[in-house]
């Protein structure tokens, strides 16, 4: 029996996210920082 999953029209398996979404992720990555204090507390920070 054929077990192929067919996606609905317009939702092809080769879809890619928008360029702006990728840019947002890369921007977040550049501004995101974590720091650990001596007593093992971890801080998350977003740089301007």
């Amino acid at each position, binding site marked *: 029996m054929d077990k192929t999953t067919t*996606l*609905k029209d317009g*939702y*092809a*398996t*080769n*879809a*890619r*996210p*928008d360029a*702006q*979404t*990728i840019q*947002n*992720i*890369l921007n*977040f*990555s*550049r501004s*995101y*920082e*974590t720091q650990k204090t001596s007593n093992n507390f*971890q801080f*998350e920070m977003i740089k301007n």
Partner: protein
Amino acid sequence: MDYKAMTDAELVKLYINGKEQALSFLIAKHEQRIFSYILSKIQNRDLANDVFQDTFVKIIKTLRKGNYNEEGKFLQWSLRIAHNLVIDHFRRQKRIPTIAPNDEYDIFKILKDETPTAENEMIQVQIEKDLHKLILLLPEEQLEVLKLRHFSGLSFKDIAEQTGVSINTALGRMRYALINLRKLMVDNKVTLSM
């Protein structure tokens, strides 16, 4: 450095060690699989972009905090994060159902604006004028009970006390007032509804 030739594990290691470019290559390598998966479930491009972004925000946070320990299985791990975020998305959607109007269904057919239109306000004023004229045609004792009940808001007990009759008489007068009012409406061809 040839990022393209690197394995996921190598790219992850470089990224954790501060090479931002490694993340670009990880995204480029897997964006199609991850995004297609999200889009196939959510079936809305804008929302799928949001979930894709959230997936990588979570990936970045986990890698930077040093909590990633699935070496060599980056794609499966990323798809699992995407899958959980898709479920979160549907849970949120279930909590706050959104209804979009279409050809078969329009929410504004159910949710009505109760504010009277100018036309309805004019009809209402006319109805009140007609009713006032008809009420004045009622016998004196019926008119009195009707006024005390509907305009003064008195109970039948209070009406009985005030007019010096029994409660049953007050109730009877009210009943006849309404019967006569209906007759007067028919006789005068007055409609008291919109």
